[in-house]
Protein backbone atom coordinates (compact mmCIF):
# COMPACT_ATOMS: atom_id res chain seq x y z
CA UNK A 1 0.00 0.00 0.00
CA UNK A 2 1.27 3.45 -0.85
CA UNK A 3 2.05 6.02 1.75
CA UNK A 4 -0.70 8.54 2.00
CA UNK A 5 -1.08 12.15 2.92
CA UNK A 6 -2.70 12.99 6.15
CA UNK A 7 -4.22 16.17 7.41
CA UNK A 8 -3.34 15.66 11.03
CA UNK A 9 -5.88 16.28 13.72
CA UNK A 10 -5.22 16.32 17.45
CA UNK A 11 -5.29 12.51 17.51
CA UNK A 12 -2.81 12.00 14.71
CA UNK A 13 0.28 14.17 14.70
CA UNK A 14 3.29 12.03 13.82
CA UNK A 15 4.70 11.98 10.29
CA UNK A 16 7.99 10.90 8.70
CA UNK A 17 10.34 12.82 6.45
CA UNK A 18 9.97 10.88 3.21
CA UNK A 19 11.82 12.92 0.58
CA UNK A 20 15.45 13.57 -0.13
CA UNK A 21 16.53 17.11 0.67
CA UNK A 22 13.46 17.97 2.78
CA UNK A 23 13.91 21.54 4.00
CA UNK A 24 12.54 22.90 7.24
CA UNK A 25 11.58 26.52 6.51
CA UNK A 26 11.08 29.49 8.78
CA UNK A 27 7.72 30.32 7.15
CA UNK A 28 5.19 28.50 4.99
CA UNK A 29 6.77 29.61 1.72
CA UNK A 30 9.65 28.16 -0.25
CA UNK A 31 11.31 31.57 -0.34
CA UNK A 32 11.68 31.81 3.44
CA UNK A 33 14.93 30.90 5.20
CA UNK A 34 15.90 27.25 5.49
CA UNK A 35 16.21 26.32 9.16
CA UNK A 36 17.68 22.93 8.39
CA UNK A 37 17.51 20.06 5.92
CA UNK A 38 16.01 17.05 7.66
CA UNK A 39 17.22 13.51 7.01
CA UNK A 40 15.10 10.92 5.30
CA UNK A 41 13.15 8.82 7.79
CA UNK A 42 13.11 11.34 10.67
CA UNK A 43 9.94 11.14 12.75
CA UNK A 44 8.41 14.57 13.39
CA UNK A 45 5.42 15.95 15.26
CA UNK A 46 2.91 18.10 13.43
CA UNK A 47 1.78 21.03 15.54
CA UNK A 48 -0.50 22.72 13.01
CA UNK A 49 -1.16 23.00 9.26
CA UNK A 50 -1.81 25.85 6.86
CA UNK A 51 -2.53 25.53 3.13
CA UNK A 52 -0.14 22.83 1.89
CA UNK A 53 2.34 23.25 4.72
CA UNK A 54 2.75 21.64 8.13
CA UNK A 55 4.36 23.33 11.13
CA UNK A 56 6.48 20.57 12.67
CA UNK A 57 8.82 19.85 15.55
CA UNK A 58 11.85 17.54 15.27
CA UNK A 59 12.93 15.16 18.07
CA UNK A 60 15.68 17.71 18.88
CA UNK A 61 13.04 20.41 19.40
CA UNK A 62 13.63 22.41 16.23
CA UNK A 63 10.45 23.85 14.76
CA UNK A 64 9.52 25.14 11.34
CA UNK A 65 7.39 24.68 8.25
CA UNK A 66 7.61 21.84 5.78
CA UNK A 67 5.78 21.33 2.48
CA UNK A 68 3.26 18.47 2.80
CA UNK A 69 4.82 16.43 -0.03
CA UNK A 70 8.01 15.90 1.98
CA UNK A 71 6.15 14.07 4.73
CA UNK A 72 4.12 10.88 4.86
CA UNK A 73 2.24 8.82 7.40
CA UNK A 74 4.58 5.82 7.20
CA UNK A 75 8.38 5.67 7.26
CA UNK A 76 10.11 5.63 3.84
CA UNK A 77 12.12 2.68 2.63
CA UNK A 78 15.71 3.10 3.73
CA UNK A 79 18.64 1.52 1.94
CA UNK A 80 20.62 -0.82 4.18
CA UNK A 81 23.72 0.63 5.79
CA UNK A 82 26.83 0.22 3.63
CA UNK A 83 24.99 -0.90 0.50
CA UNK A 84 26.00 2.10 -1.49
CA UNK A 85 29.66 1.77 -0.68
CA UNK A 86 31.88 2.18 -3.74
CA UNK A 87 28.87 3.09 -5.82
CA UNK A 88 27.97 6.65 -5.02
CA UNK A 89 30.41 9.13 -6.41
CA UNK A 90 31.67 11.55 -3.85
CA UNK A 91 29.74 10.05 -0.97
CA UNK A 92 30.77 7.83 1.89
CA UNK A 93 29.06 5.15 3.93
CA UNK A 94 25.63 4.19 2.78
CA UNK A 95 25.47 7.01 0.27
CA UNK A 96 22.79 8.89 2.13
CA UNK A 97 24.57 12.12 2.64
CA UNK A 98 23.98 15.83 2.89
CA UNK A 99 21.28 17.68 1.00
CA UNK A 100 23.91 19.08 -1.35
CA UNK A 101 25.01 15.62 -2.33
CA UNK A 102 21.64 13.95 -2.39
CA UNK A 103 20.45 14.88 -5.83
CA UNK A 104 23.87 14.88 -7.44
CA UNK A 105 24.30 11.26 -6.44
CA UNK A 106 25.53 9.28 -9.39
CA UNK A 107 27.13 6.04 -10.45
CA UNK A 108 30.66 5.89 -11.81
CA UNK A 109 30.06 4.16 -15.12
CA UNK A 110 29.63 0.45 -15.76
CA UNK A 111 30.51 -1.96 -12.99
CA UNK A 112 33.17 -4.62 -13.47
CA UNK A 113 30.45 -7.28 -13.39
CA UNK A 114 28.45 -5.55 -16.12
CA UNK A 115 31.60 -5.32 -18.25
CA UNK A 116 31.99 -9.09 -17.85
CA UNK A 117 28.39 -9.60 -18.93
CA UNK A 118 28.93 -7.33 -21.94
CA UNK A 119 32.09 -9.24 -22.92
CA UNK A 120 30.24 -12.56 -22.78
CA UNK A 121 27.38 -11.15 -24.85
CA UNK A 122 29.69 -9.42 -27.37
CA UNK A 123 27.80 -6.22 -26.67
CA UNK A 124 28.86 -3.62 -29.25
CA UNK A 125 30.95 -0.75 -27.90
CA UNK A 126 28.29 1.82 -28.88
CA UNK A 127 25.83 0.38 -26.34
CA UNK A 128 28.45 0.23 -23.58
CA UNK A 129 29.46 3.82 -24.27
CA UNK A 130 25.82 4.90 -24.31
CA UNK A 131 25.16 3.37 -20.90
CA UNK A 132 28.42 4.72 -19.52
CA UNK A 133 27.41 8.21 -20.59
CA UNK A 134 23.87 7.88 -19.22
CA UNK A 135 25.19 6.74 -15.84
CA UNK A 136 27.32 9.84 -15.44
CA UNK A 137 24.36 12.24 -15.68
CA UNK A 138 24.10 14.30 -12.49
CA UNK A 139 21.51 16.81 -11.37
CA UNK A 140 22.54 19.11 -8.54
CA UNK A 141 20.13 20.13 -5.81
CA UNK A 142 20.57 23.75 -6.87
CA UNK A 143 19.61 22.98 -10.48
CA UNK A 144 16.60 20.96 -9.37
CA UNK A 145 15.36 23.73 -7.06
CA UNK A 146 15.73 26.25 -9.88
CA UNK A 147 13.77 23.94 -12.18
CA UNK A 148 10.94 23.48 -9.65
CA UNK A 149 10.86 27.21 -8.98
CA UNK A 150 10.66 28.18 -12.63
CA UNK A 151 7.82 25.69 -13.14
CA UNK A 152 6.07 26.80 -9.91
CA UNK A 153 5.89 23.23 -8.75
CA UNK A 154 5.19 21.98 -5.23
CA UNK A 155 6.34 24.41 -2.58
CA UNK A 156 7.07 26.97 -5.30
CA UNK A 157 3.46 27.02 -6.54
CA UNK A 158 2.42 30.14 -4.63
Amino acid at each position, binding site marked *: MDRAFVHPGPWENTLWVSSEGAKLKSDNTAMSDTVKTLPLGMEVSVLRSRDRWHYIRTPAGEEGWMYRG*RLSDTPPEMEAEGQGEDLFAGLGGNGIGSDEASTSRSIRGLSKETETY*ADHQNTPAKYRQALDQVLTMTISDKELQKFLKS*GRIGEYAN
Partner: protein
Amino acid sequence: MKPMNHRSLILFLCLWGMFTLLQPARAETRPPFDHGMSHKDDLSDSAGIRMAGLLDKLLDPESKERKILEGATTVLSATGDMDYKSERTIGESLALEGFRRYGLPVENPELQRYINLVGHAVARNSQRPGIPYVFVVVDSPLQNAFSCPGGIIFVSKGLIDTIQNESQLACVLAHEVGHVGHKHALKSIQRAKFFKGVGKITAATMEGEKGEQFESMIGDLQNVLFDKGLDQNMEFEADQTAMETAYRTGYDPQGMIQVLERLREIESKAKKKGSWFSTHPPLTDRIQKCRKSLNRYPDADELSQGKNRFQARVR
Protein backbone atom coordinates in the same frame (compact mmCIF):
# COMPACT_ATOMS: atom_id res chain seq x y z
CA MET B 1 27.20 -26.73 -1.12
CA LYS B 2 26.85 -23.29 0.41
CA PRO B 3 26.65 -23.27 4.22
CA MET B 4 23.38 -21.97 5.66
CA ASN B 5 23.46 -18.47 6.98
CA HIS B 6 22.45 -17.60 10.51
CA ARG B 7 19.26 -15.70 9.59
CA SER B 8 17.99 -18.53 7.41
CA LEU B 9 18.56 -21.04 10.17
CA ILE B 10 16.65 -18.93 12.70
CA LEU B 11 13.78 -18.43 10.27
CA PHE B 12 13.54 -22.10 9.51
CA LEU B 13 13.79 -23.14 13.16
CA CYS B 14 10.98 -20.73 14.06
CA LEU B 15 8.74 -22.10 11.33
CA TRP B 16 9.61 -25.67 12.15
CA GLY B 17 9.13 -25.04 15.87
CA MET B 18 5.62 -23.71 15.27
CA PHE B 19 4.85 -26.63 13.01
CA THR B 20 6.20 -29.12 15.53
CA LEU B 21 4.25 -27.65 18.43
CA LEU B 22 1.03 -27.75 16.45
CA GLN B 23 1.50 -31.31 15.26
CA PRO B 24 0.35 -33.22 18.40
CA ALA B 25 -2.79 -31.13 18.65
CA ARG B 26 -3.71 -32.11 15.13
CA ALA B 27 -2.64 -35.72 15.39
CA GLU B 28 -4.01 -36.71 18.77
CA THR B 29 -7.64 -36.86 19.80
CA ARG B 30 -7.93 -34.71 22.90
CA PRO B 31 -10.89 -33.64 24.99
CA PRO B 32 -11.72 -30.08 23.97
CA PHE B 33 -11.02 -28.53 27.41
CA ASP B 34 -8.14 -30.75 28.55
CA HIS B 35 -5.25 -28.41 29.41
CA GLY B 36 -3.65 -30.61 32.06
CA MET B 37 0.02 -30.14 32.98
CA SER B 38 1.01 -33.68 32.21
CA HIS B 39 -0.17 -33.33 28.64
CA LYS B 40 1.82 -30.10 28.17
CA ASP B 41 4.95 -31.85 29.40
CA ASP B 42 4.38 -34.55 26.84
CA LEU B 43 4.17 -31.92 24.13
CA SER B 44 7.43 -30.26 25.23
CA ASP B 45 9.28 -33.54 25.20
CA SER B 46 7.88 -34.39 21.84
CA ALA B 47 8.84 -30.98 20.41
CA GLY B 48 12.37 -31.26 21.81
CA ILE B 49 12.93 -34.64 20.22
CA ARG B 50 11.65 -33.35 16.89
CA MET B 51 13.91 -30.27 17.09
CA ALA B 52 17.01 -32.40 17.75
CA GLY B 53 16.13 -34.63 14.81
CA LEU B 54 15.62 -31.58 12.62
CA LEU B 55 19.08 -30.20 13.39
CA ASP B 56 20.64 -33.48 12.30
CA LYS B 57 18.70 -33.35 9.07
CA LEU B 58 19.65 -29.73 8.38
CA LEU B 59 23.31 -30.63 8.63
CA ASP B 60 22.86 -33.30 5.97
CA PRO B 61 23.30 -31.61 2.55
CA GLU B 62 21.24 -34.29 0.83
CA SER B 63 18.26 -34.21 3.19
CA LYS B 64 14.81 -33.05 2.08
CA GLU B 65 14.72 -30.52 4.95
CA ARG B 66 18.01 -28.94 3.86
CA LYS B 67 16.76 -28.63 0.27
CA ILE B 68 13.51 -26.98 1.41
CA LEU B 69 15.50 -24.47 3.43
CA GLU B 70 17.78 -23.68 0.50
CA GLY B 71 14.72 -23.04 -1.65
CA ALA B 72 13.38 -20.61 0.95
CA THR B 73 16.65 -18.71 1.15
CA THR B 74 16.75 -18.47 -2.64
CA VAL B 75 13.54 -16.46 -2.60
CA LEU B 76 14.74 -14.28 0.27
CA SER B 77 18.08 -13.45 -1.29
CA ALA B 78 16.56 -12.66 -4.67
CA THR B 79 14.19 -9.96 -3.51
CA GLY B 80 14.24 -7.90 -0.35
CA ASP B 81 17.65 -9.05 0.81
CA MET B 82 19.58 -8.29 -2.36
CA ASP B 83 22.28 -5.67 -1.90
CA TYR B 84 22.06 -2.55 -4.05
CA LYS B 85 25.25 -3.26 -6.00
CA SER B 86 23.90 -6.63 -7.14
CA GLU B 87 20.57 -5.07 -8.07
CA ARG B 88 22.40 -2.42 -10.06
CA THR B 89 24.47 -5.00 -11.94
CA ILE B 90 21.25 -6.71 -13.05
CA GLY B 91 19.89 -3.31 -14.06
CA GLU B 92 22.98 -2.29 -16.03
CA SER B 93 23.07 -5.61 -17.89
CA LEU B 94 19.42 -5.23 -18.77
CA ALA B 95 20.00 -1.62 -19.83
CA LEU B 96 22.60 -2.77 -22.38
CA GLU B 97 19.95 -5.04 -23.86
CA GLY B 98 17.51 -2.14 -23.74
CA PHE B 99 19.74 -0.11 -26.06
CA ARG B 100 20.15 -3.12 -28.34
CA ARG B 101 16.39 -3.54 -28.55
CA TYR B 102 15.11 0.06 -28.53
CA GLY B 103 18.02 2.05 -29.94
CA LEU B 104 20.58 4.52 -28.66
CA PRO B 105 19.87 7.67 -26.63
CA VAL B 106 18.37 10.51 -28.63
CA GLU B 107 21.16 12.96 -29.42
CA ASN B 108 19.59 15.97 -27.78
CA PRO B 109 21.37 16.94 -24.54
CA GLU B 110 18.70 19.51 -23.65
CA LEU B 111 15.93 16.95 -23.92
CA GLN B 112 17.93 14.39 -21.91
CA ARG B 113 18.60 16.99 -19.20
CA TYR B 114 14.92 18.00 -19.09
CA ILE B 115 13.80 14.37 -18.70
CA ASN B 116 16.32 13.91 -15.90
CA LEU B 117 15.12 17.05 -14.11
CA VAL B 118 11.49 15.89 -14.14
CA GLY B 119 12.63 12.37 -13.26
CA HIS B 120 14.71 13.50 -10.28
CA ALA B 121 11.91 15.79 -9.10
CA VAL B 122 9.58 12.79 -8.74
CA ALA B 123 12.21 10.23 -7.67
CA ARG B 124 13.17 12.23 -4.58
CA ASN B 125 9.53 12.01 -3.45
CA SER B 126 9.10 8.37 -4.38
CA GLN B 127 8.80 5.48 -1.98
CA ARG B 128 12.50 4.69 -2.52
CA PRO B 129 14.23 8.07 -2.67
CA GLY B 130 17.63 6.96 -1.38
CA ILE B 131 19.11 5.44 -4.54
CA PRO B 132 20.53 7.13 -7.65
CA TYR B 133 18.22 7.29 -10.66
CA VAL B 134 19.04 8.08 -14.28
CA PHE B 135 16.57 8.65 -17.12
CA VAL B 136 17.20 8.27 -20.82
CA VAL B 137 15.14 8.93 -23.95
CA VAL B 138 15.90 6.35 -26.63
CA ASP B 139 15.38 6.77 -30.32
CA SER B 140 12.43 4.44 -30.87
CA PRO B 141 9.10 5.24 -32.52
CA LEU B 142 7.32 2.71 -30.28
CA GLN B 143 5.38 4.05 -27.31
CA ASN B 144 7.29 2.48 -24.47
CA ALA B 145 8.94 3.04 -21.10
CA PHE B 146 10.55 0.55 -18.75
CA SER B 147 12.75 0.52 -15.71
CA CYS B 148 15.80 -1.55 -14.98
CA PRO B 149 16.43 -2.67 -11.39
CA GLY B 150 18.54 -0.17 -9.48
CA GLY B 151 17.02 2.90 -11.11
CA ILE B 152 17.89 3.15 -14.82
CA ILE B 153 14.71 4.36 -16.55
CA PHE B 154 14.12 4.21 -20.30
CA VAL B 155 11.50 6.24 -22.19
CA SER B 156 11.07 6.03 -25.95
CA LYS B 157 10.90 9.09 -28.18
CA GLY B 158 7.62 7.65 -29.45
CA LEU B 159 6.10 7.91 -25.97
CA ILE B 160 7.52 11.39 -25.40
CA ASP B 161 5.84 12.49 -28.66
CA THR B 162 2.53 11.17 -27.35
CA ILE B 163 2.75 13.10 -24.09
CA GLN B 164 1.29 16.61 -23.97
CA ASN B 165 2.49 18.22 -20.77
CA GLU B 166 4.96 17.97 -17.90
CA SER B 167 2.56 16.42 -15.40
CA GLN B 168 1.90 13.56 -17.83
CA LEU B 169 5.64 13.07 -18.24
CA ALA B 170 6.10 13.19 -14.45
CA CYS B 171 3.45 10.48 -14.04
CA VAL B 172 5.05 8.21 -16.66
CA LEU B 173 8.47 8.59 -15.03
CA ALA B 174 6.96 8.14 -11.55
CA HIS B 175 5.28 4.93 -12.80
CA GLU B 176 8.69 3.56 -13.77
CA VAL B 177 10.32 4.81 -10.57
CA GLY B 178 7.48 3.00 -8.75
CA HIS B 179 8.45 -0.29 -10.38
CA VAL B 180 12.01 0.21 -9.09
CA GLY B 181 10.73 1.07 -5.61
CA HIS B 182 8.50 -1.99 -5.45
CA LYS B 183 11.31 -4.13 -6.97
CA HIS B 184 8.79 -5.55 -9.40
CA ALA B 185 11.31 -6.77 -11.99
CA LEU B 186 13.36 -8.50 -9.31
CA LYS B 187 10.27 -10.23 -7.97
CA SER B 188 9.58 -11.60 -11.44
CA ILE B 189 12.94 -13.45 -11.42
CA GLN B 190 13.09 -14.39 -7.76
CA ARG B 191 13.08 -18.10 -8.56
CA ALA B 192 15.89 -17.88 -11.13
CA LYS B 193 18.45 -20.68 -10.93
CA PHE B 194 21.21 -18.10 -10.67
CA PHE B 195 20.19 -17.18 -7.12
CA LYS B 196 20.57 -20.71 -5.81
CA GLY B 197 23.52 -20.47 -3.48
CA VAL B 198 24.30 -16.86 -4.45
CA GLY B 199 23.99 -14.11 -1.85
CA LYS B 200 25.39 -11.28 -3.97
CA ILE B 201 26.69 -10.74 -7.46
CA THR B 202 30.48 -10.61 -7.73
CA ALA B 203 33.08 -11.06 -10.46
CA ALA B 204 33.19 -14.77 -9.55
CA THR B 205 29.46 -15.27 -10.06
CA MET B 206 29.71 -13.84 -13.59
CA GLU B 207 31.92 -16.69 -14.78
CA GLY B 208 31.38 -20.37 -15.60
CA GLU B 209 28.06 -22.03 -14.91
CA LYS B 210 26.87 -19.18 -12.69
CA GLY B 211 27.74 -16.71 -15.42
CA GLU B 212 25.61 -18.66 -17.87
CA GLN B 213 22.75 -18.69 -15.37
CA PHE B 214 23.09 -14.92 -14.93
CA GLU B 215 22.89 -14.41 -18.70
CA SER B 216 19.87 -16.68 -18.88
CA MET B 217 18.24 -14.66 -16.09
CA ILE B 218 18.82 -11.41 -18.00
CA GLY B 219 17.23 -13.11 -21.02
CA ASP B 220 14.18 -13.96 -18.90
CA LEU B 221 14.00 -10.37 -17.68
CA GLN B 222 14.07 -9.09 -21.25
CA ASN B 223 11.21 -11.39 -22.07
CA VAL B 224 9.23 -10.03 -19.13
CA LEU B 225 9.97 -6.33 -19.60
CA PHE B 226 10.19 -6.05 -23.40
CA ASP B 227 7.60 -8.59 -24.55
CA LYS B 228 5.38 -10.34 -22.03
CA GLY B 229 5.02 -7.58 -19.46
CA LEU B 230 5.02 -7.65 -15.67
CA ASP B 231 2.16 -9.06 -13.64
CA GLN B 232 -0.95 -6.92 -14.14
CA ASN B 233 -1.24 -6.17 -10.44
CA MET B 234 2.29 -4.77 -10.47
CA GLU B 235 1.28 -2.39 -13.26
CA PHE B 236 -1.82 -1.26 -11.38
CA GLU B 237 0.31 -0.76 -8.28
CA ALA B 238 2.85 1.31 -10.24
CA ASP B 239 0.01 3.49 -11.60
CA GLN B 240 -1.25 4.19 -8.08
CA THR B 241 2.26 4.87 -6.83
CA ALA B 242 2.87 7.22 -9.76
CA MET B 243 -0.20 9.31 -8.94
CA GLU B 244 0.84 9.52 -5.29
CA THR B 245 4.42 10.48 -6.16
CA ALA B 246 3.39 13.08 -8.73
CA TYR B 247 0.96 14.61 -6.23
CA ARG B 248 3.58 14.75 -3.49
CA THR B 249 5.95 16.51 -5.89
CA GLY B 250 3.30 19.06 -6.86
CA TYR B 251 2.20 17.73 -10.26
CA ASP B 252 -1.40 17.07 -11.18
CA PRO B 253 -1.85 13.28 -10.68
CA GLN B 254 -4.55 13.31 -13.36
CA GLY B 255 -1.61 13.35 -15.77
CA MET B 256 -1.52 9.57 -15.36
CA ILE B 257 -5.10 9.24 -16.57
CA GLN B 258 -4.55 11.73 -19.39
CA VAL B 259 -1.56 9.88 -20.79
CA LEU B 260 -3.41 6.55 -20.63
CA GLU B 261 -6.39 8.11 -22.41
CA ARG B 262 -4.09 9.54 -25.06
CA LEU B 263 -2.58 6.10 -25.61
CA ARG B 264 -6.07 4.62 -25.90
CA GLU B 265 -6.86 7.14 -28.62
CA ILE B 266 -3.95 6.01 -30.76
CA GLU B 267 -4.04 2.33 -29.81
CA SER B 268 -5.75 1.09 -32.98
CA LYS B 269 -3.06 2.61 -35.21
CA ALA B 270 -0.02 1.97 -33.01
CA LYS B 271 2.51 -0.82 -33.38
CA LYS B 272 1.90 -3.18 -30.47
CA LYS B 273 4.88 -5.53 -30.24
CA GLY B 274 7.45 -4.33 -27.71
CA SER B 275 5.37 -1.31 -26.69
CA TRP B 276 3.32 -0.31 -23.63
CA PHE B 277 0.28 -1.69 -25.47
CA SER B 278 1.59 -5.25 -25.36
CA THR B 279 3.45 -5.17 -22.05
CA HIS B 280 0.83 -3.44 -19.92
CA PRO B 281 -2.75 -4.31 -18.88
CA PRO B 282 -5.66 -3.05 -21.01
CA LEU B 283 -5.79 0.73 -20.92
CA THR B 284 -9.48 0.91 -19.99
CA ASP B 285 -8.84 -1.13 -16.83
CA ARG B 286 -5.91 1.07 -15.88
CA ILE B 287 -7.86 4.28 -16.46
CA GLN B 288 -10.76 2.98 -14.40
CA LYS B 289 -8.53 2.10 -11.45
CA CYS B 290 -6.73 5.44 -11.58
CA ARG B 291 -10.03 7.32 -11.67
CA LYS B 292 -11.19 5.48 -8.57
CA SER B 293 -8.23 6.78 -6.57
CA LEU B 294 -8.68 10.43 -7.60
CA ASN B 295 -10.68 11.19 -4.46
CA ARG B 296 -7.42 10.94 -2.54
CA TYR B 297 -6.26 14.13 -4.23
CA PRO B 298 -8.95 16.73 -3.64
CA ASP B 299 -6.89 19.69 -4.90
CA ALA B 300 -5.44 17.88 -7.95
CA ASP B 301 -6.91 20.47 -10.34
CA GLU B 302 -4.89 23.23 -8.68
CA LEU B 303 -1.53 21.51 -9.19
CA SER B 304 0.97 22.07 -11.98
CA GLN B 305 0.48 20.64 -15.47
CA GLY B 306 3.45 22.41 -17.01
CA LYS B 307 2.15 22.50 -20.57
CA ASN B 308 4.12 25.52 -21.75
CA ARG B 309 7.49 24.38 -20.45
CA PHE B 310 6.97 20.90 -21.83
CA GLN B 311 6.12 22.24 -25.27
CA ALA B 312 9.12 24.57 -25.21
CA ARG B 313 11.62 21.93 -24.09
CA VAL B 314 10.39 18.90 -26.02
CA ARG B 315 8.79 20.04 -29.25
